[in-house]
């Protein structure tokens, strides 16, 4: 997480000459009940123009399956970023994934979006299973997913 904060601070430093103020953003993804083993999830941020900003979390530890998180692959490929330190266990049927990201205040209500791609062995894969805006208006608001995600919410 420290590394993420460093990256974020660097990328926002130019925009905000004054000391950047950051806050903890909690992202909660609750999965539906489905048949099959644990789901792989990619949680990542896009900029206001739709381009990739950064990866927040990858649930699922076998890199050979990351290709199934196709929207994220497409987004991250050009960045050449490593996901070291940003991965954890896959998420089982009906379980909830909670992520806390320390994000700059300047990113809130600025058109940034949180995307979640999902994939399950022998169960299909979803690019942009759920997408939610990084907005204070969305505080506590919940969106539904079209695949394995029952709900995705942001709170700050």
């Amino acid at each position, binding site marked *: 997480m420290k590394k993420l904060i460093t990256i974020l601070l660097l990328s926002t430093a130019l925009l905000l000459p004054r000391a950047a103020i950051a806050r903890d953003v909690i992202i909660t993804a609750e999965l539906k009940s489905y048949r099959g083993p644990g789901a792989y999830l990619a949680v990542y941020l896009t900029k206001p123009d739709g381009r990739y900003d950064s990866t927040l979390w990858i649930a699922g530890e076998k890199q050979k399956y990351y290709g199934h998180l196709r929207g994220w692959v497409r987004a991250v490929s050009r960045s050449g970023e490593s996901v070291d330190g940003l991965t954890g266990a896959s998420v089982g049927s009906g379980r909830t994934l909670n992520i806390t990201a320390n994000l700059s205040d300047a990113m809130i209500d600025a058109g940034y979006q949180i995307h979640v791609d999902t994939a399950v062995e022998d169960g299909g894969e979803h690019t942009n299973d759920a997408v939610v805006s990084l907005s204070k208006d969305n505080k506590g608001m919940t969106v539904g997913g079209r*695949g394995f995600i029952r709900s995705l919410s942001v709170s700050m």
Partner: protein
Amino acid sequence: MFRISHTYLALVAALFVSFMAITGSILSLEPVISWSQASSTNGLNGSVAELANSVSGKFSDPQKLIRKASGAFLVYYYGDAGLTADHVDPLSGSSLGIYSPSDVFGFVTELHRSFFIGDTGRLITGITASIMVFLSLTGLALLAKRLGGWRRLLRQPQGPAQQTSHIKIGRLSILLLVVTALSGVWMSLVNFDVLSDGSTGYVPFPEFVHGGEPTAIDGLVALQGINLGDLRELVFPVAGDVTDVFSITTASGSGYVDQVTGTMLSFIPNSTWQKIYQAVYTLHTGQGYWWYAILLGVGALGTLFLVYSGMRVWWQRTRLPIPKLANNISDSKADVIILVASQSNTTWGFAATLHKALVKNGHRVSTAPMNNLQRVYPQARHLFILAATSGDGGAPDNADKFLTKLEMLNVSPGMQFAVLGFGDRSFPKYCGFAGDVDAALQARGLRRLHNLFEIDRSSASQFAEWGDDVGTSMNALLALDHTPIHPKTAGYVLIDRHDYGHKHETPKVILRFKLPNILNGRQRFEAGDLIGIVSSRNSAPRFYSLASGYADGFLEICVSKHPGGVCSGLLHELKPGDRIEGFIRENPQFRPHANMKPVVMIGAGTGIAPFAGFLRGNTRKRPMYLYWGGRDPANDFLYEKNLSEWHADNRLTGGKIAFSRIAQKQYVQDKLLEDAAFIRTAIADGAQVMVCGGVAMARDVRTVINDICRPMGINHEMLKQDGRFLEDVY
């Protein structure tokens, strides 16, 4: 060493191994079921472009097209109920109905690989697989040792039924066992990142995509060039996104296809590690090869049987308790040292009897395993070695360091030794280890108290005989009255008796007993097995060959009355309704092989008993020939009536009978010589020769068989190695 690790590791892992075998055998059905459900893809030579094109025309918003290992094609698409998967016909691209992964196989797969407890479970299954590899290899080494060398691995094993079935099933399934276990270990090591599966994560998305109006899918060159059989997965571009591409995985690698130009972008071929991993995965799961999956299932059931039969062998071996040794004193103070090499614990029983007799004679005795040989025995005057021999003629486990340690022994001039070998004459290297020890002691310069003496099949009378001799040399009276620890007996009630040979000094009788009922210890047996009859509490049992099988519903023996013989005397006195105590001892080394090859049976006197049993049970009319010698047809023609009945209904094919106390005096050997040409033909046809009778007769028969076989360039030893010359000698 191997045996101990094989046994104890198997006991520890038995539960997990059984679990893996059960779940594995269930999973082996999956490729078979998938294969039976997949539509035939024989001669399927369409391209991915054609099928993807028809699929995109027939399904709303298709997401991906998959070819499963079974050959079935699936399409994932966004329908009314969200993402749905359908089976598709690879020729038309039409739906063949909804696909839903099997709950059962999904559940069992997860159990089989991780017990549903994640990496901890995967670690346990990985360790179990490595134990299975180890057990297979030690099992193979033990088998080679037992059968007398690696080149004899396929020989007929000798010994009790539990052991031989463990050997036979193990031998049949060893290859599958090693393959499944090793591939399991490999996959486990990949899971824990010790080995690579060659995957480098995802293939990076191409940097430059043409963009613009997409071309019709069947016009995409790269997809046209891929045969349907090579497809693994094709992911469609997101609908309406002109900058997206197709992702494709084939049998040879993965890459992207531009939806406008139809060119392959950034294709990465499979690495060697990936190819190895795929091969290992297929070997382990049988995915895509239904016939191999069936083999895997059979192998898994074999594994389950091996756990069971192995436990039984272990149980039988440990059941005989090591007898307590009273007054066993320190070796530094003893004047008599007894060292024991025991494969099962039977030899310990004899050691205990010797120990007790020596103590009774005022000796200070120390008894220990042979590996406990010390460098110095300050007060010892006598060294007794009681040595069993393992199957290959080598040292039993508790004596494998003896010969090395012997080099260090400080030989005192006053010490005398005697070696007593225990073995089973039906094994090729009977008392081999005892012979080696005897020679080594002599070579080290120890003085001999008694020559090497060999005891066949735990004979208590031979042991007593040796005791008398040794006692004389030691100026002591060693009454070695050995009572083996024998299994629990059951009561057998006489129902019928048929007497022969009253005019001679050795009357013979055929006794038929009712089987005990199930609650009172009824045991299964086959003709040729033995019944141990216990005539009194303290005497050793006497063994008689069974002339009937369990299926006959009665137990029959043939008893010759020995002058002064307690047990045979008692049996000859029995009247119908009288009861004796006995137990069954399996004699699997004396049975016709389970095939339809001819059997040549040679016997004299009561040695006819097992053969009568084999003939009675020969309902399959296998060619069986009997050569038997009696004394006088008027008095001891055992089974006379039965033999003509069995001959009439073809249970007995032929043979000859000789009598030695009539004018035309002949022995069974003479009849064999008369039929020499026939016997050679039968042996050339794969016949098994079985001999039952006294020691002298057996020796003469061996000579005659060797004479008969000489023109063929073989002898009884060579037949014996193939399990085709069997003797039951008393």
